[in-house]
């Protein structure tokens, strides 16, 4: 609650955004541009300044193409994701945002029919090289999903799961407390760590999932629409949390909520759906990737402009 009162504008915006259809989203995107990134530095300081060119990339994506059972899902994506920044992936449903983000920590491996071409270099190393172990990749690149998915265990055991399976050394109680503090959840749950995580609210469950991902001390946090199932207040909590987290972690977030993208991200990639005229099959491509402010105020592609102003999608 404390964090909401510090940044009331974010949650009130989110509230209006939650009920907004595609029509009014355009005008609100402008609000998001002016108040969102504009007020963010007040809360988090210098960390939200524009990414400078010399910040090293954490991911270098080159000609990435993903297919499911031979059918194109994402085609020919190339861009770099900057370290210790929040990168938002926006675009209409079915444009491959989720497929793309899942290819950054090889979650697509879990789908037997998925095939990946091109390369994703993570700190210079191709994640899809034959000697790379997907389990090792996911230890360093954590993931938070659209729907909160706590394990049917206690709050404590949920957080301790990652450190335990990775065999991390150290005091487990301290690790759990540190992760819950980073997830901005400690004060709410410190007296009921042994109770089942299913007893928490949806917003708390999602912060638990974020804390659970942080407990293994990853380098990157991938978030696939982390707030889409949450109410505006919980959404505000998650967004506040992201501002704090980007001092330590590189964050990539998929979102359908353009206000959210404008508020929280430094860089934005806009995906669009491409329809194959002959077969009618749809796949996703990246149209534009730039600093968030530029994407929302002065996009270089008209498809981006149509989307961020709410004329399409």
């Amino acid at each position, binding site marked *: 609650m404390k964090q909401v009162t510090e940044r009331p504008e974010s949650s009130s915006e989110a509230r209006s955004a939650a009920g907004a259809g595609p029509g009014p989203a355009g005008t609100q995107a402008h609000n998001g541009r002016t108040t969102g990134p504009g007020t963010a530095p007040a809360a988090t300081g210098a960390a939200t300044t524009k990414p400078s060119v010399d910040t090293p990339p954490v991911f270098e994506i080159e000609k990435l193409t993903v297919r499911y059972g031979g059918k194109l899902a994402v085609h020919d994506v190339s861009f770099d994701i900057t370290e210790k920044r929040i990168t938002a992936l926006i675009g209409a449903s079915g444009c491959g945002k989720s497929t793309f983000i899942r290819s950054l920590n090889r979650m697509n491996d879990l789908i037997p029919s998925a095939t990946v071409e091109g390369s994703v270099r993570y700190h210079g190393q191709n994640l899809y090289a034959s000697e790379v172990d997907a389990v*090792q990749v996911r230890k*360093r690149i954590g*993931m938070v999903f659209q729907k909160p998915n706590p394990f*049917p265990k206690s709050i404590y055991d949920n957080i301790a*799961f*990652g450190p335990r*399976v990775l065999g991390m050394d150290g005091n487990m109680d301290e690790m759990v407390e540190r992760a819950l503090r980073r997830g901005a959840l400690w004060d709410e749950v410190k007296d009921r760590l042994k109770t089942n995580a299913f007893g928490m609210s949806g917003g708390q469950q999602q912060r638990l999932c974020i804390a*659970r991902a942080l407990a*293994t001390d990853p380098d990157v946090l991938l978030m696939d629409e982390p707030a889409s199932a949450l109410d505006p207040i919980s959404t505000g909590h998650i967004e506040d949390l992201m501002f704090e987290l980007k001092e330590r972690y590189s964050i990539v977030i998929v979102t359908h909520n353009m206000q959210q993208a404008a508020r929280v991200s430094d860089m934005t990639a806009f995906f669009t759906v491409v329809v194959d005229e002959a077969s009618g099959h749809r796949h996703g491509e990246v149209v534009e990737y730039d600093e968030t402010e530029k994407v929302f105020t002065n996009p270089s592609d008209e498809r981006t402009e149509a989307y961020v102003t709410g004329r399409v999608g």
Partner: protein
Amino acid sequence: MEASSTAAAGGPRPNLSRGRTPRSVGESIIKALLFVAALISIATTVGIVVSLLAETIEFFSQVGILEYLLGTKWTPLAGGDQKSFGVLPLISGTLYLTALGLIVAVPLGLGSAIYLAEYASPRARRIIKPVLELLAGIPTIVLGYFALTFITPVVLQGIFGIEVLIFNALSAGLALGVLILPVVATLADDALRSVPSSLREGAFGLGASKPQVVLRVVFPAALSGIVAALVLAASRAIGETVIVLVAGGASANLGIDPRESFQNMAAFIAQTARGDIAAQSVEFLTIFAVGTTLFVMTLILNAISIRFVRRFQQVYE
């Protein structure tokens, strides 16, 4: 709908009263038929319990209840002084044979379930699952004679060189295991597959390996369903008649040597009911006493499992 559109503003009141139409009559007939169906199954259950209890009470008017429950010798069909009504050997034989069956079926059944639910390719699954279900369809008399004519002489005496009697607990127990293996495997497979894949993804996303995901997340999340599968399998083994009758022998045995012959309660009932005994004699009444005991045992087992399942059940959206 209404032909008279004059009722638009403050016209005559629309007729909303319940009328007798062919549809409403049909509905009440269907309702009555369904009620009768439910009533018949309830009446049957009550009838069975009442007839069991009536004869059981008659039995206990002739045999002391303590002698029955605590006695260690079960020879109700013997003559004269050899007659003894201690049911403990039958109870222990029932539990012992069930335990042997579970020792076979639990590891194999859970192993196949985990393989099917978590590892098998869709193609392997399409082949293995129907084969398991086919195994469940084998008549128990076939399994019983399989135990008597193959497991005992060929497998136990031949391959392993174990000196078992012709009728022995080991071969009956193995056959019981084969009988309940598909129950364990298919129900545990269902339980594992009902665990939402979001939990698996969450665990993989934290850098867990496949065995860690399966054993630390999916299996515990499916625990209530797995326990229900095991209890159903145990109930099946406790009440199994033919396999024990054919392969297990006919002596109520309080020991634990699997090479000897054992009898369970259901096999005793079947054997005695076939025999030449006078109605309303004490031998005849033992059938009902043992039947009641078996009924109470499975009832307790089911009650425990229901409590356990409720206690650990996770409701996923």
